[in-house]
Each structure stands twice: as C-alpha cells, then as structure tokens.
C-alpha cells in the first residue's frame, strides 16, 4: 500500500483537498441530516397534534351530544392525509366513540402513548390529544400516523445530500486538481531539477521562477545554491586537477627523495657501523689504556670515566661519576688547583701536562698529569672537558728522590768542601782531621756510627783511629780488628771502591761481622769505603746504620768514598805536612772539582 508519506506532492495536495472537502461536506451532511431529523421529530407530532386538535374541536359537539355519525363524518376528513392510519375519538372514559381507519388498515388498534402525548414506534407515530370544551376535557382524539412516507422522504433527502456531496467532491476534485497543478508546478519543477542534479551532477540546471510566494523564494534560493555549487564545483575541479598535478610532481619528488633517502640510509648505516667501530675502538682503548680517560661537564662533574680510575685512584667508576674533579685533589692543593683549572676553562683553553696531586681512596697521594680539551657546542658554549690523566707519581717520587739526592749531594758537597778546608788538615793534624771527618760524615749520612780504621804496619790488623757515635756525640778510639778473622771483608776492601751493605747481616762481605759485631750494636747496614794511599788500601772508613736496614744510594757511596779519600789525604798531608801545603791545597781544589764531577 502506498504510504501517504511517499505520495507525490500532487497526490498529497489532491488528497488534502479531498480529505478537507469530504470532511467538511460530511460534517455538513451530518449536521443537516441531524437537524432535519430533530426538526422532523418535533414537527411531525406538532402538526399531527394540530390536526388532532382540529378534529377534536370539530367533533366536540358530536361527542358532547353523542352524535356518532357526525363524529365519524368529522373523522373522515382525515382521509385527506393518507399517512393517517387511524383516527379515533374517545370519550372521557377512554372508550372509542368514533374511529376512522385508513383503507387497508382495518386491524389497527388504538395504542397507548405515554405521558408526553405521543410515541414513536417503528413506523408509526401514535398521538393522543384531549378534546377540551370550555376548559373541561370531554374526551380525546387518537391519531396513528404512518411514518414510512416521511422516512422515505428522509432517505431521499439523505440520498440527495449524499449525491450533492459526491458532486461537490467531484467538483472540488476537479477544481483542486486544476489549482494544485498550478500550485504544485513550482514544487515539481524543483523536485525534477533536484533529481536531475543528483543523477547527472549537472549544476547548470536552473528552475524558472513562476510565483512570487515562498516557493518563488525557494526557487530563487535553489538557483542561487546551484550557481554557487557550480562555481565551487568548477573551482573544486580545478583545484582537484592542480592537486593531482602536484601530487604527481610530489610523488616523483618523493620517489627521488626516497631513492636519495635509501642511499643516505645505506651511507648512514655505514657511518653507524664506522661509528660503532670507533666507539668500540675508543672503548677498547679507553678501558685498556693506562691513561685514565674522562669527561666532565661545565661545572666540573665527571660524566664519563674509564675503568682504569679504580686502579689509579681506588674509586670505582660509579663512585667517580657525578663527583667534582676537584674533590679528588689533595686537600692542601684543592683550592689552588681548582682555581687554576677553572681559569683554563674560562679561556676554553687546553689542559696540557697539568700536574695535580690527588688522593687515592686508601689515602695515598697520587700525582697525575692531566691533559684535556674543551667540549663546545655549535654556538661555542662550553659543555665540558674531556681528556686523559697519566699517573706520574713515580716520576714525581723520582723527582722528589732526585731533589733529595741533590740536596744530599749539596750537603755532602758542603761537608766535603768544609772538611777539605779544614785547618787541621792543612796543619797535618791527622787525629783532629779524622775526628772532624768522622763527625761530619756521621751527620751528613745520618748514620749512627762512623769510624776510621787504619791498617797496622804489618797489615794484620786494623786500628780504629776514631769512632764517632752520633746520638752520644762521643769520640772513641783504640779498637782493633784482626783482618785474618774477616777474610772476605778484607778481600772486598781490596777490590771495589766501597762496600755498600744494605743488609749487613746477609751481605757476604759483611756477614762475618754479624754475630760478634753487628748484632750487639744493632747495626743493620754498613757503608765501608777503603782508604787508599797511592795504590794501597791503608784503611777503611766505616759508616754503620742502626735501626731499620737502610738502602745506600749511589751518591752516599760516592760520598763515603770521598770521605775515605779525605782521610787518605789527611794521612798524606800529615806525612807531608809542611812540604806539600800548596800541593795539598791545589790537590784539594782539583779533587774537589773532580769529585764534584765524579759525584755527578
């Protein structure tokens, strides 16, 4: 079934017209019919009542004077209306006085009517009217009216009305059909145009404006919309084409770019590989180098440290990272070194062989030589420093040792020079000279005991000419040693310049003295230098260290030898006292110079 919604506009309009017209007409009909009915229901009894009254009045005399004939005659007048089936005059007690019956209705009887005076039965109207004479009811008139003719009339009326209604509808339909064609035209035009646009996408379609009402406005708006759409469509198409072109271009670009990218990626991969290798190289180097490689940020915090740091400073890399570089400095130097470093940083300078003292985790001093370069960003701002530290502790220690030995040498030199200048020596006072020499040597070498021994004339024993004990500040002499008891020692004396026995007990050359001599006196190291006069060994200068075994340094050996030489000089001087004064002076000067040379 066609739903109202989907009907055409024309159809809807027709339907609307039909519906409204039919409703109006139908209501009209109903109203008319109802009015008729009501009217009729009221009118018919009234008219019948009038007739009854007339009959009653006319028959009143007959009734009063009991003239049945006359009464009947009066009733016969009812013949005129052939709808009246029965007319009956009844006396006051209700008995029929005179009755008229329509032809063919002989069996009809007077019926009750009820209080209103009339009653409608199926096809009859029963009416009763009183006959009043001079204010008194003398009887009544009963009429029975056949309604069929009236019904027929009503039916005809209804039919006529219905017919009229149909006619009206038809007329209305025709009229509305014509009108709606006119009205709907704009709508259908619009609809058709819209459909055409939708189907063929043809935006050049326009609708002719026919009316000046809202539909006309709609048409204008529609046309306007279409032209705008058309413009936009064209623009769209253009931009679409442009876009396509551009897309194509871009695609080509992209393809190229892609190719380039691929190459770049390949290169990048290579670069990454290279980078990885370099990183690995760096890592291998850094981790295995002896130098400690590090990086700090601009504030001085360690951001990278190679694992060597643990060996170098005792800290694990985790313990170092995040700490400031100056935290590791020795506290005494911290401020100084820190300021020096930051001065360099401020200049973005290179750190080159920056020697700084650090403290190992175990407390030991570690000297490092730091080399570093600044890390700068593109703008040139300092991001930090990176570099490498080398452990120069040994060197430093060596340098310290060197300085010490230098100091020692100077001291020794001074001592020797002083001794050489000794007046006792000039005078040839051997004893005094020996005492001087022993004391000076003791102080210079910082040994506990220094003794000067000379062979006896037969070389079987040695005599101690002087023994100086440092802590007691005491000179003693007179002790004698039989050389035959110490053969190895004697032999050693003859050979080398000096006997430097770091551990006197174990050194074979001096071991002979161990039990009898060394142990009782607590001597642990001996430095003995033979005294030669000419080519002969005539004695020995002994330097004996008490306490922890001591390692004689070469310079000390040379000093000992020099001391021995001084003694030999003193001996010679004493022998050639006055004769060789100038010679001695020159010899001393030359020997001092050559000693100084040989020391070095």
């Amino acid at each position, binding site marked *: 079934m066609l739903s109202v919604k989907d009907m055409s506009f024309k159809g809807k309009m027709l339907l609307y017209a039909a519906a409204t017209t039919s409703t109006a007409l139908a209501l009209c009909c109903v109203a008319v019919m109802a009015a008729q009915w009501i009217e009729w229901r009221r009118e018919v009894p009234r008219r019948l009542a009038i007739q009854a009254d007339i009959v009653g009045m006319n028959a009143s*005399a007959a009734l*009063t004077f009991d003239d049945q004939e006359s009464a009947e005659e009066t009733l016969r007048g009812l013949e005129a209306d052939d709808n009246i089936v029965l007319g009956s005059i009844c006396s006051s007690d209700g008995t029929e006085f005179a009755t008229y019956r329509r032809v063919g209705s002989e069996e009809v009887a007077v019926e009750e009517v009820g209080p209103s005076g009339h009653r409608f039965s199926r096809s009859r109207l029963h009416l009763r009217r009183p006959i009043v004479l001079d204010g008194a009811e003398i009887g009544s008139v009963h009429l029975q009216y056949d309604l069929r003719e009236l019904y027929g009339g009503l039916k005809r009326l209804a039919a006529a009305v219905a017919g009229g209604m149909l006619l009206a509808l038809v007329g209305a339909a025709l009229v509305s059909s014509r009108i709606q064609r006119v009205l709907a035209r704009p709508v259908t035009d619009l609809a058709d145009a819209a459909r055409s646009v939708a189907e063929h996408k043809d935006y050049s379609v326009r609708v002719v404006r026919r009316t000046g009402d809202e539909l006309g406005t709609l048409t204008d708006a529609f046309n306007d919309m279409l032209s705008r759409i058309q413009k936009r469509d064209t623009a769209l198409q253009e931009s679409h084409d442009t876009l396509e072109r551009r897309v194509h271009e871009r695609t080509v670009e992209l393809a190229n770019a892609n190719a380039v990218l691929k190459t770049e990626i390949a290169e990048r991969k290579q670069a990454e590989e290279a980078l990885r290798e370099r990183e690995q190289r760096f890592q291998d180097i850094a981790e295995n180098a002896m130098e400690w490689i590090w990086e700090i940020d601009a504030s001085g915090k360690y951001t990278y440290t190679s694992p060597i740091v643990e060996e170098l400073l005792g800290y694990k890399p985790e313990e170092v990272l995040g700490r400031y570089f100056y935290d590791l400095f020795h506290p005494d130097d911290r401020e100084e070194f820190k300021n020096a470093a930051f001065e360099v940083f401020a200049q973005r300078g290179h750190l080159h062989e920056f020697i700084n003292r650090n403290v190992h985790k175990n407390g030991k001093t570690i000297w490092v030589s730091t080399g570093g370069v600044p890390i700068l960003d593109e703008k040139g701002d300092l991001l930090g420093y990176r570099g490498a530290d080398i452990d120069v502790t040994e060197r430093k220690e060596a340098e310290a040792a060197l300085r010490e030995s230098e100091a020692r040498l100077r001291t020794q030199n001074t001592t020797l020079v002083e001794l050489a200048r000794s007046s006792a020596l000039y005078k040839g006072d051997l004893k005094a000279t020996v005492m001087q020499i022993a004391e000076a040597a003791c102080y210079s070498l910082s040994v506990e005991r220094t003794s000067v021994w000379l062979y006896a004339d037969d070389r079987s024993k040695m005599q101690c000419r002087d023994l100086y004990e440092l802590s007691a500040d005491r000179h003693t002499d007179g002790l004698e040693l039989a050389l035959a008891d110490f053969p190895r020692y004697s032999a050693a004396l003859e050979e080398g310049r000096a006997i430097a026995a770091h551990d006197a007990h174990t050194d074979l050359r001096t071991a002979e003295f161990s039990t009898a001599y060394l142990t009782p006196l607590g001597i642990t190291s001996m430095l003995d230098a033979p005294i030669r006069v000419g080519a002969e060994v005539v004695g020995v200068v002994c330097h004996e260290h008490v306490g922890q075994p001591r390692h004689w340094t070469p310079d000390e050996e040379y000093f000992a030898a020099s001391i021995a030489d001084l003694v030999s000089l003193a001996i010679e001087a004493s022998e050639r006292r006055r004769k060789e004064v100038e010679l001695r002076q020159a010899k001393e000067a030359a020997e001092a110079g050559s000693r100084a040379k040989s020391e070095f």
Partner: protein
Amino acid sequence: MPDVLSRKATKCSILMVLAVSALLAPTLPVGAQEIDEAKSLKVKAAYLYNFAKFIEWPDGAFEDEQAPFVVGVLGDDPFGQILDDTVEAKNVAQRSVKIQRLHWNNKADRDKLKNCHILFISASERSRLDKIFAALEECPVLVVSDIHDFARDGGMIGFVLEKGRIAFETSREALEKAKLKASSRLLKLARIVEPSKRSR
C-alpha cells in the same frame, strides 16, 4: 398459590352475577323503562348544560362577569335532582350555573323568564307556547323543549328521539331572532328545521 386465588375469584364473580340477575330479573321490563327514562333525562339535562358551550349570548345577557348562568325550567320540572346533579359544581364560561324553576302562573316567574339564559319549557306548557315566545321575543334566551315539533313551532332547540338516541332540531331563525349565535358544530349535529306557519 396464584392458581388457587384465581379459582376463588372466578367462583365469586359467578356467584355475584347470579345474585344480580336474580335481583334484577323481576324488575327488568319495568326497570328498563324506568332506566330509560332516567337516562334520557340525564342526557337531556346534560345537553341542556352543554348547549351553553356552543352558543354565544350577546353582551347584554349578563350583568357582569360574575353573573351566573341561569338555567330555567318552566312548568313541571321533569328533571328533578338530575338537573341539579348535572350542573353541580360546573361552570359555563367560568360562570356558575344557577337553576331556576319557574311557573307561568307566577307573575314574578314570568318576569324572571327573561333573566334565564337557557329555558327548558316543560311539556306541561304546550298550550302556552305562543305566549311564552311572545314574552321572550327578541330576548337572548335559548328555549329548549322536548315538546313535539318545538323547533317548527318557534322554539329554538327541540329534543327528538332518533334511532334510540336523543337528537335535536333547531330553528336558525329563532336563534337569530334571539340574537344567539350557535356554533356550526352544534348546528351540524342538529336537524335544521324551518318554522312552520301553522298553529299560532
């Protein structure tokens, strides 16, 4: 239960009918006559009264609105109580009805004749009809009688017996002379007669 009652009722009614017939049986022929007589008088009396409803008296016939309607009986009153009963508590055009019994011999009565509106002339006055008419000439008095040929003889309405019922004759001239207007309805019923010129 209802069946029992109806059987009882039927029994009763049968008994009553028998009783009444027994009573009435001997008197029947005579009684019938008597009954007829009474009935006819009743009818006449009723007609007498009812004539008033179909006739218009001229204005002068009544003194005022309260004046009663006078029904006179001249001569021997055949009605007796019947007439009184008939008009008792009845009105004619809202006037009360008064009955006057009059006798010709009485002069006073003769004067009162004119005051009646309806006058029933008894059969006893048969011989005096002319005199009565003369006395009532042009007076608005409806003269009614059951004297034979009353209407022909100058009366206005005369009762006649017709087909077992009481009918009446009227003289239109008489009514006109008396200035009484009779309704056509009444006249319709009556047999119009011409007054004959005999017996004067």
